[in-house]
């Protein structure tokens, strides 16, 4: 009996979807807007995450050594910094490569290069670039360098300066900014999703409102609540499935255009992101569509099934 009911409910839902014509199309389009908002937010989160990773990647601290510092002291310190759990990586820049980099950065700046030639000697010292896993962890790294550990003590004489204190304000602000942007992203996503779900819910409620008299008749004829509710939920699910296909279709040319024209602006190619995460995005969109459609119908029809 259960399967007979399921079959009848599905058939009846399909038939009334077809016969409701304009109302069905309107509901599908509104659901499409909701799902497009959800999909856009997936892309927005991706862009935001990518930008935050980029910014965090640019933050590091540099330990400058005096020109008298020996390479072994530096490499010893490097090894002990690398052992810290907060540290992601340490890059050693020798005196020679520091000079080479300086020259490369100023290759069009003849005055500076001339001044450098006049000095004759290499004025640049070696340095270590330390990259922490989180921007907030640089404090710990600096504490370690100023601390009492054996490696830090032997090296302290050869350390010229640590640029952490110059950068501290910037680093602090960036980490506040980064976590703020992340939180803002979540809040906006949440608000947008709630608003669009409410719009969809209202549309489906209107569609069911049109059929309220039918619901009364079905009850009089002796149909149980489950049997009345089923076809309407089926219609809601159809709205969700169709809308998710339309959404994915819309985002194909849309992300393609964004990918070719705005890749530099976003720092990432959205089309590549779309194609490489197609199935995850599709799964999120279609599941959201089905859930929104089914639950909206369920709630909307419950009003007429009380008594």
């Amino acid at each position, binding site marked *: *009996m259960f399967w*007979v009911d399921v079959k*009848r409910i599905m058939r009846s839902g399909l*038939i*009334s979807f077809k*016969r*409701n014509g304009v109302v069905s199309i309107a509901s599908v389009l509104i659901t499409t807007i909701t799902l497009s908002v959800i999909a856009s937010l997936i892309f927005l989160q991706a862009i935001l995450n990518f930008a935050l990773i980029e910014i965090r990647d640019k933050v590091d601290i540099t330990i400058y050594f005096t020109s008298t510092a020996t390479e072994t002291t530096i490499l010893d310190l490097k090894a002990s910094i690398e052992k810290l759990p907060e540290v992601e990586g340490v890059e050693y820049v020798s005196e020679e490569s520091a000079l080479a980099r300086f020259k490369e950065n100023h290759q069009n700046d003849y005055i500076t290069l001339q001044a450098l030639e006049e000095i004759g000697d290499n004025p640049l010292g070696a340095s270590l670039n330390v990259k922490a896993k989180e921007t907030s962890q640089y404090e710990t790294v600096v504490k370690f360098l100023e601390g009492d550990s054996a490696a830090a003590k032997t090296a302290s004489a050869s350390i010229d300066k640590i640029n952490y204190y110059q950068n501290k304000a910037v680093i602090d602000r960036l980490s506040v900014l980064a976590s703020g942007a992340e939180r803002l992203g979540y809040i906006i996503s949440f608000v947008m999703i709630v608003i669009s779900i409410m719009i969809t819910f209202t549309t489906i409620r209107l569609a069911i409102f049109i059929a309220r*008299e*039918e619901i*009364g*008749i*079905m*009850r*009089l*004829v*002796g*149909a*149980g*609540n489950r*049997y009345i509710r089923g076809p309407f939920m089926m219609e809601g699910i159809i709205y969700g499935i169709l809308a998710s296909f339309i959404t994915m279709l819309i985002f194909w040319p849309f992300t393609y255009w964004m990918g070719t024209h705005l890749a530099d602006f976003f720092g990432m190619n959205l089309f590549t992101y779309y194609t490489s995460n197609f199935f995850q995005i599709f799964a999120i969109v279609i599941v959201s569509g089905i859930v929104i459609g089914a639950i909206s119908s369920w709630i909307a029809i419950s009003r007429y099934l009380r*008594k």
Partner: protein
Amino acid sequence: MIYFNNVSKIYPKESPALEDINLTISAGEFVSLVGHSGAGKTTLIKLILAEEHPTKGNVFFESTDIHKLSAKELTKLRRRIGVVFQDFKLLPNKTAYENIAFAMEASGKTDEEIKSDVPHVLDLVDLGDKIFNFPHQLSGGERQRLAIARAIINQPELIIADEPTGNLDPINTYEVVQILKKINDLGTTIILTTHNRGVIESVGRRVVSLDKGRVVRDDKDGKYVI
């Protein structure tokens, strides 16, 4: 079969719609309820269908108090009652066939039963050639015959017809009354409300007259008096 026991129904801020109704309707009877608009006919019927609850008293269907049933039991009870209304109450988005099939599906009939019974009952009310028409493609008389076909398809014990001829011309009215009489002859109890004198006289069975919410007359083979 139906017992009203001291039933009153008072709508808030209005005069009572029904007052102290004591009424017994036995199985197999054909009862006509007559009275002016607002006399309480429709309220009485809504009480039997549990669309309204009495303010006082009880309404019994056989030995069960209708208003103490759960939603599920009520659904089962409704399947034992066929209803016909003045405004037909057909499902507008379903064809004649589907309207009747829906009532059968709702009461759990198999696909085979539906396939064989629906065309049969449509033939019975002379709609055999309109199986796939939607209600808006049928005339008033045809719609009412479709509604009757739907009411009898599950072989109910009781048929309630609330002003079934209110929207029909004399010829269609006559046809509907003849169909109801035939159904009654086959053993189904019928409650009919009307204020059409011709209908009462052509039925010629028990007549219960209501006025201002009270039963004022109850005649065995009554005439239209009010």
